[in-house]
């Protein structure tokens, strides 16, 4: 009954071996990181190119605004360059990048002012539709799909960062629980519990949309 999500879910995507793998040996970034630490600027640029998209995606889902996400992504990589020597290779480099990006997103939210201005801005964007690059099949479906995404994004913005971050990392970015626990420096059980609470809260927030989608009136 419930296995269909697990089959295409993050655990399936990441592979069960992720949960037990050592943090460093299979890190595909290790060579570039070593070169960067030895002063190779090209290696750092290659790392940025490799990770810019996932950092942008995370920030977009956390902040809701593409322009702001791009700006914070730049800050994330500058911070990474500034504090990269703190990367001890005890976890994957991508985990470290996610952690820096998550902190940048949380700092940005605090700077905005505890979310109030953010909510207003998102409400405005919801009316006009958030611009998210996509490859729609047909214009009608694209319009509906864009509207649904905007409503989901607005719903996400109403969650507290403590719930939103693990939810985005798991359900959108597809990270396994263990890696999310390392990114957020939380226990794996706490991560699972927050994801469940975030889903339940989002279900409440999206209420009507969820029911319409469930009955087939809207195609998700």
């Amino acid at each position, binding site marked *: 009954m419930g296995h269909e999500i697990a089959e295409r879910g993050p655990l399936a995507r990441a592979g069960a071996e992720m949960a037990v793998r050592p943090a460093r040996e299979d890190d595909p970034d290790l060579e570039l990181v070593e070169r960067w630490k030895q002063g190779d600027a090209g290696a750092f640029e290659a790392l940025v190119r490799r990770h810019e998209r996932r950092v942008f995606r995370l920030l977009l889902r956390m902040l809701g605004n593409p322009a702001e996400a791009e700006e914070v992504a730049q800050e994330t990589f500058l*911070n990474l360059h500034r504090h990269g*020597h703190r990367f001890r290779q005890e976890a994957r480099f991508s985990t470290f990048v996610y952690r820096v990006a998550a902190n940048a997103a949380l700092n940005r939210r605090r700077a905005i002012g505890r979310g109030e201005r953010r909510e207003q801005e998102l409400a405005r964007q919801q009316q006009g539709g958030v611009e998210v690059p996509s490859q729609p099949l047909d214009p009608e479906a694209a319009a509906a799909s864009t509207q649904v995404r905007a409503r989901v994004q607005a719903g996400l913005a109403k969650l507290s960062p403590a719930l939103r971050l693990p939810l985005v990392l798991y359900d959108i970015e597809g990270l396994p629980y263990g890696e999310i626990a390392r990114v957020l420096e939380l226990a794996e059980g706490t991560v*699972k519990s927050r994801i469940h609470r975030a*889903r339940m809260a989002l*279900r409440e927030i*999206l209420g009507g949309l969820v029911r319409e989608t469930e009955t087939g009136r809207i195609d*998700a």
Partner: protein
Amino acid sequence: MNHHDVRARLSEYLEGELSLRQRALVDAHLDACSVCREELGELRVTVRLLRGFEDAAPRTAIADAVMDRIRAGEGAPSWWSRLTAQLEELTQPRVVRPLVVCALGLAALLVVRPEIMNVWRSPVGAPPQAVRARAPGLSDLPVASAPAPRAVGRALGAPSADVVAERPPVRRVWRHVGTGGSLEFRGDPVYRHVRPLLSRVPVVNEAPPFPSPGWPLMMGPDPGAGFPSVRTVSGGR
């Protein structure tokens, strides 16, 4: 399994993370509870909506912008950042662990061989006279400043004799005796007698009060004589 328990496990149920037994219990509850069935359906749709987000790409090349800003001087680590990084480096387990092991080893060595500390505690070769001056009441006792080894042996071996140590402390003396600082005693009955006695004697400072009469103590090597000078408190021969 009640309504509350099932609600708390719906995500795990969707992800297929429950044990077979738990899954059977949830299934049984879902068969009977339409509210939970509805919640499960809505939760499934919520997850589908979240996972339906298409891949998003930045409109500008973030890497180019970042590298331009780095070339312009941004993103350089501050002196504070470098300092904290170095401090963090020092507290890394690979640095700390060997230090802890060394410290524990040293502590264990000190427990087993506490006399090692005497190497620093007492300077070797300080004039015995200074000690005598700080030991009032003993200065009038006869001093055998350079006894023959056998005389020392007699003093130590006699049941009524008390041998008073001056300086350096007794354990230090033992070290000297044991390591050949006073070769005159090696192989002599004196050495064999002194050794068990010294194991009972605490390290004493040169300052009074001296241990009570009856405690056998040895002195350190007399720099002038080249071997311990011995003084008897009572009944010395």
